[in-house]
């Protein structure tokens, strides 16, 4: 929050001026107005929460905002001020300790944050100043500084690339820590900047900072002496983002445009706020109920006290006269103090111990996650990590799962799986050795006897080798000759040559490698000529004439090359939908089947086509392209028009299938999650095609799933504006998915029920931003609700091309939607951090992309597959345990305090405690705490194996089922029933207090002790009844606590305690046990209290909820990916 405010402060002029002017190197420009160095915020990153000055008040304020702390503070104050039955020390000391320890801890943490900030802020960077390189602390970088960054360094702020050590004025950057895309991206220097940066006089005009990573608009005015100032437009390709890393480029110079909290990274970073679980909210709600009970009890007692006292003789009998002071006190004041005294007397109904026990349970319980050996990944030698134990039970409540794709669902590890040449399938089967055997003489790789002609084969492979924008990594630039995307270097020893490839898309690499497997090796691009080594180890050279770039709308790319022999060839590859219309229909039929099959298996499919260009055709295309490239206006449209014109009449030669390797058991995990009633949304920064195929592979989309697409592509409509089209589509989809869909019956398992049409929804970032921020404010809520409703009725939702903040927005939107469902985000990269922070539960995967996600997550697991056990087993159990813990705690304190309340009616409303002080204090701490703690740690009402096998069991506890008002009411009624029973049972017994066979009578402490004994036994046995999983620990603590109670009572009553001012319990317990009547009443009250419970358990059994679901086995329709080989 503070950060947000800071942002607003920093970018304070955002509203007023929508662009900023930056003077490169702070050099004034000749012709413009006087040089005014404008104020921008410095490059300091602030993540700390407190300063030395505001620590104490702010921290105290935050601590007392917790309802429990506040309550105990009030109780403490009451005890200090008013003469109460218990001493103020009993509540003051603990409270003080709690507050102090928390403050120290939070102070320490903030110290660490300060330190971390300093580390970033004091990092030395090289800045060019007046021709010299000066080392400066990172925080001192100002907007306009020219900064030098060398290879593998991260950019200290957002820079406009001015100069690169690479000849072609490009540099490579990986933005893994920003958006999770680990491939290398090419950025370009601003054209026409001087070699000598010192001589460069320029201003940059650009928009004010905004969080969208992919958007940047600016202009650069370059002033040269005696020349018209040149204007160059700046786009995202010129902008180097803070947090990204320079790769494969020795060094670059750039001018800082956004600094500190205004960088796109900082704007995308959301503060880590305290997350509270739904259980905690329930606790607070129950707490309020109990607070009301408490207050009403106190009010009732106070009122009755005064009513009762008004009767003559009752107020001040001669045997109990008041002091003068008491007589003089104002009546209303007396009433008030009486009220407060009652509050203190009954305040045990809300015990500190519950909070402590809950905290304990979470703390100790979370060890089971860390300890779980199923979460241990031998590869990284790590198990699960629990960053906060506050949310354990939330794992059992998840309704929406937001998952990142790259690195989470997939390994981001592209692999060439098969190709189809001229309708024949070429499957790369097993080992690499077989690949080597793929020669003309050996025939095709697959065992099918049919194969395409050799010519076709070679043409296809050449196409793969040529039609791409892959670069070969310069030898020697890095020791490890692997590309950054692919980590399978150990698989390539058989290859004669190891080489690393760099490409903007990992599947291009996979294709080039695929071609390599079949004998065609791409050697590199040198001065516009591409070299290929063919099967006969001959080098073929092709002159690269044009690259028709890939774009998401066209969804294809082409190259035009010229062979040695002078032929001009066009190779085109792209999505089937964009290729098929451009090739001969008869060719399509042969390949379509393969493509569709591959697509539904979750591979990314690309079709490859080619066309031979005659000299005339080429000439036309060439001029067209050149003209379009130079066009100043509508360049994009013109280019596309030419592309479309060139890419026609091609012939289809084949298709490829590339697998984006899924994480282990990704599909099973997703299926289990869906089976458990969770809705899975994939949020990715990746392209739609890629993401879609992953969804298919993960079985999120299935063959029968009807996809509702809401992307820029579908919004392209001749007739309508985007927004109108959007509205139209939204309404159409809504009709389909929401209105026409039959009402979903609760508990009906989906996905394999064929009766219902499944819908999958796809939206991209740009469209989403229109949905979220339409031009007319009025539409916003309508769009949003339509969108949400559609999404909620879809089995899976895919959001692609998302900026990190958009991911968080989506999460937030769902989180705040009706019913406020519990959301879970899982991701591995820095781009997922914002959604991890936004969701109720954030899970980090200990992936390859750094530790940012793990650091910001609540739980970190090594692999996606671990999510299943984490949610279905751990989450479920934690939820059941803590829910039971909470209910039980309220219950046991209700029946603890209710007799004390009832006793007021029999003691003249004099706040006489029923139980001895020792019992009052020890009840929650010793006598009844251990069994419930053991229960809440060890209980497995359903064994872990069954939970894992039957995902549907998870639905049983959905929607906070065990902490709703109904179960709460049940527990409360149970507590009231038992409390009444305890009190009145003993009350009737005491109608004749001569309970011993020697005729002696029992006094008030005996009364309290009998009630208390019944109470302790009943609540402990009640828990024993609820325990379904008796380990030796349970036995030990349950029977141990009871034994301890008996032992303690003997001990406490058996000794004259020198430090006590009254020995009121002396031998009370022993005397009680010497009375047969006391024994009998204790036994009957315990049995009678538990009777309804036993009855309920038994009578519910025949139609028990478990027996039915146990039988329902989740049909795992999906076979393991590995088995395909």
């Amino acid at each position, binding site marked *: 929050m503070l950060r947000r405010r800071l942002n607003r402060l920093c970018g304070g002029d955002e509203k007023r001026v929508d662009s900023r002017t930056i003077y490169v190197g702070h050099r004034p420009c000749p012709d413009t107005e006087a040089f005014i160095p404008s104020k921008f915020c410095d490059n300091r990153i602030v993540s700390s929460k407190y300063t030395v000055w505001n620590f104490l008040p702010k921290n105290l304020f935050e601590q007392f905002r*917790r309802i429990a702390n506040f309550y105990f503070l009030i109780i403490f104050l009451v005890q200090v001020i008013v003469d109460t*039955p218990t001493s103020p020390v009993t509540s003051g000391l603990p409270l003080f300790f*709690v507050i102090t*320890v*928390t403050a120290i*801890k939070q102070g320490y943490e903030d110290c660490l944050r300060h330190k971390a900030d300093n580390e970033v802020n004091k990092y030395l960077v090289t800045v060019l100043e007046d021709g010299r390189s000066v080392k400066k602390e990172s925080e001192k970088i100002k907007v306009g500084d020219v900064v030098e960054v060398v290879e593998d360094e991260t950019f200290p702020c957002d820079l406009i690339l001015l100069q690169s050590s690479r000849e072609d004025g490009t540099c490579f950057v990986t933005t893994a820590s920003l958006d999770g895309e680990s491939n290398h991206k090419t950025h370009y220097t601003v054209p026409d900047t001087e070699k000598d940066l010192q001589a460069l006089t320029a201003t940059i005009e650009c928009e004010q900072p905004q969080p969208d990573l992919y958007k940047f608009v600016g202009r650069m005015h370059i002033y040269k002496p005696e020349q018209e100032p040149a204007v160059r437009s700046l786009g995202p390709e010129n902008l180097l983002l803070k947090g990204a890393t320079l790769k494969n480029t020795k060094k670059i110079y750039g001018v800082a445009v956004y600094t500190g909290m205004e960088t796109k990274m900082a704007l995308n970073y959301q503060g880590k706020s305290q997350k509270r679980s739904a259980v905690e909210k329930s606790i607070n709600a129950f707490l309020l109920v109990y607070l009301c009970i408490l207050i009403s009890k106190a009010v009732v007692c106070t009122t009755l006290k005064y009513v009762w006292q008004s*009767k003559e*003789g*009752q107020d001040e*009998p001669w*045997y*109990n*006269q*008041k002091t003068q002071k008491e007589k003089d006190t104002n009546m209303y004041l007396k009433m008030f103090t009486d009220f407060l005294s009652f509050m203190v007397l009954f305040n045990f109904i809300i015990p*500190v*111990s519950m909070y402590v026990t809950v*905290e*304990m349970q*979470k703390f100790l319980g979370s*060890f089971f996650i*860390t300890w779980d*050996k199923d979460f241990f990944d031998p590869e990284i030698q790590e198990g699960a*990590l*629990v960053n906060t134990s*506050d949310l354990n039970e939330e794992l059992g409540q998840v309704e929406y799962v937001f998952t990142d794709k790259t690195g989470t669902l997939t390994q981001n590890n592209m692999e060439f799986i098969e190709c189809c040449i001229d309708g024949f399938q070429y499957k790369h089967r097993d080992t690499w050795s077989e690949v080597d055997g793929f020669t003309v003489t050996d025939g095709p790789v697959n065992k099918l006897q049919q194969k395409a002609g050799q010519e076709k084969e070679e043409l296809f492979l050449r196409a793969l080798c040529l039609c791409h924008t892959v670069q070969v990594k310069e030898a020697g630039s890095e020791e490890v000759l692997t590309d950054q995307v692919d980590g399978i270097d150990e698989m390539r020893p058989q290859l004669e040559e190891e080489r690393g490839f760099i490409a903007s898309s990992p599947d291009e690499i996979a294709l080039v490698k695929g071609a390599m497997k079949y004998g065609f090796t791409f050697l590199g691009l040198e001065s516009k000529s591409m070299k290929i080594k063919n099967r006969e180890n001959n080098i073929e050279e092709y002159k690269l004439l044009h690259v028709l770039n890939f774009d998401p709308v066209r969804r294809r790319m082409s190259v035009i090359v010229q062979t040695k022999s002078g032929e001009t060839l066009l190779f085109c590859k792209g999505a089937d939908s964009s290729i098929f219309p451009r090739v001969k229909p008869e060719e399509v039929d042969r390949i379509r089947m393969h493509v569709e099959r591959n697509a539904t298996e979750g591979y990314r499919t690309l079709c490859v086509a080619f066309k031979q260009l005659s000299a005339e055709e080429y000439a036309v295309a060439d001029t067209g392209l050149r003209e379009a490239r130079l066009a100043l206006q509508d360049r994009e449209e013109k280019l596309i028009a030419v592309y479309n014109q060139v890419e026609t009449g091609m012939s289809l030669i084949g298709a490829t299938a590339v697998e984006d390797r899924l994480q282990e058991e990704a599909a099973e995990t997703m299926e289990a999650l869906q089976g458990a009633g969770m809705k899975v949304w994939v949020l990715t920064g990746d392209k739609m095609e890629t993401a879609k195929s992953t969804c298919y592979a993960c079985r999120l989309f299935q063959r029968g799933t009807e996809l509702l697409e809401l992307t820029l592509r579908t919004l392209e409509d001749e007739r309508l504006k985007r927004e109108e089209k959007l509205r139209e589509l939204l309404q159409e989809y809504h009709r389909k998915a929401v209105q026409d869909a039959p009402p979903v019956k609760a508990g009906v398992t989906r996905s394999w029920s064929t009766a219902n049409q499944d819908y999958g929804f796809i939206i991209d970032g740009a469209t989403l931003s229109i949905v979220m921020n339409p031009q007319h404010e009025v539409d916003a809520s309508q769009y949003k609700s339509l969108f949400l409703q559609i999404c909620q009725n879809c089995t899976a939702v895919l959001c692609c091309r998302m900026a990190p903040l958009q991911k968080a927005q989506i999460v937030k939107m769902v989180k705040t939607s009706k019913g406020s469902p519990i959301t879970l985000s899982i991701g591995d990269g820095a781009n997922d951090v914002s959604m991890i922070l936004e969701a109720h539960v954030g899970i980090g995967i200990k992936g390859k992309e750094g530790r940012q996600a793990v650091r910001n997550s609540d739980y970190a697991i090594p692999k996606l597959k671990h999510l299943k056990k984490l949610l279905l087993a751990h989450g479920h159990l934690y939820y059941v345990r803590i829910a039971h813990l909470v209910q039980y705690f309220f219950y046991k304190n209700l029946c603890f305090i209710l007799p004390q309340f009832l006793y007021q009616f*029999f*003691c*003249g409303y*004099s706040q006489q405690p029923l139980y001895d002080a020792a019992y009052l204090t020890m009840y929650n701490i010793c006598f009844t*705490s251990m069994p419930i703690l053991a229960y809440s740690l*060890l209980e*497995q009402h359903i064994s872990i194996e069954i939970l894992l096998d039957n995902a549907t069991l998870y639905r049983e506890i959905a929607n906070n089922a065990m902490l709703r008002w109904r179960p709460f009411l049940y527990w409360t009624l149970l507590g009231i029933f038992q409390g009444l029973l305890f009190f009145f049972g003993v009350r*009737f*017994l005491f109608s*004749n207090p*001569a*309970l*011993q*066979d*020697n*005729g*002696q*009578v*029992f006094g008030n402490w*005996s*009364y309290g002790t009998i009630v208390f004994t019944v109470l302790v036994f009943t609540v402990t046995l009640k828990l024993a009844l609820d325990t379904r999983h*008796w*380990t030796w*620990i*349970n036995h030990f603590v349950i029977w141990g606590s009871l034994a301890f109670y008996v032992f303690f009572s003997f001990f406490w009553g058996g000794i004259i305690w020198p430090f006590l001012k009254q020995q009121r319990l*002396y031998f009370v317990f022993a005397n009680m046990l010497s009375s047969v*009547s006391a024994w*009998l009443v204790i036994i009957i009250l315990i*049995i*009678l209290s538990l*009777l309804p419970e036993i009855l309920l358990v*038994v*009578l519910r*059994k*025949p139609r028990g909820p478990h027996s039915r679901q146990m039988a329902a086995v989740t049909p795992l329709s999906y076979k393991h990916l590995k088995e395909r080989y």
Partner: protein
Amino acid sequence: MFVALHSDLSSFGFFSIVYFIYEIEVHTVSLSFLSEDIRMKNEGEASEQPDNTAFTQQQLPAWQPILSAGIVIPGFLIIGLAFLGIGIGLFLTSQTIQVLEMDYTGVEKDSPCFQCTMQSVQNCTCEVTFSLSALFTGPVFFYYGLSNYFQNFRKYGVSKDYYQLTGDTQYFKSPRDVCFPYSHDSKNNPIVPCGAIANSMFNDTFELYQIINGTKKKVPLDGKGISWWTDFNIKYRNPSSVNGSFASAFDGTVKPINWPKAAYELDLTDPNNNGFLNQDFLVWMRRAALPQFRKLYRRITEGDYAGGLPAGNYSLTVHYNYPVLSFDGRKKLVFSNVSWMGGKNDFLGIAYLVVGSLCVVMSVVMLIVYAKFKFSDDDDA
């Protein structure tokens, strides 16, 4: 096996130590700082492979009881029958206990003690007569009962000085504040024993006579053993005598305002029943739980009456000192004998009978329910 067991134990050891530490600070632990601790801890040991023990993997061998019909129905039946048995026993026992209860407050004009309720009358005595038609089997216990009398007032209850009552003469001079306003008399002399409880000690006394042929034969009342053994022998102590005189231990103090005589004069006949160890005093000091209570006054165990009170007419002389009408209280006399379960109390017997029959009925109902379901779900238990 041994190793596994050992590590199992050690992990539990850790668990219990954590809990133990926690327990000590149970009030002191913050609501959230623990969670942060784990983080630090976990990051430190993240690279270690987790222990593969039954405990850490939540695979401890466990007994999973399920309340199936096969257990519950016979269980209910057995409990029900047992309770019925106990209930019958209790009820019959309770029926055999004889109780004779007489209100002698004197509210009614024609009641014998009416004249004593006048405030003007000092040292009032009245006579209550009753007759027994049959033998009142002994030992007979003689209780007095008070109602609408709140010995369980909080302020009343704390209004005593335990140190005084253990004979600590230091506290004779300066009674604890809790005794206020019964700690000093109007001349600011310390009161021993101080406090409201002591001050309000029941001081009606009774003499019981059997009227045989018009002559009164005194029934000996045994005042020993009416208070708790521990109260008499351990909890309360008299101050040690000063110069051989018990009374001088109380020098410089005054008797409680309402008392006719000082503590050291409570029973001059028996030094063992004097001072704070006076049985009546001890009985009074054990506060009653409810506003309507009875306290043991005497036992009839001696002489001709050891076997009980024979049928006949009796006269009870009441030295009426204790005012209760100001707060609408009542005073009662109760003669009762006791059984192994104490005094007469029908509640317990009835409760056992009701619960017992309830159990039996429920087991029958369950049997019917289950017979209908043909125990179909028994096997999944």
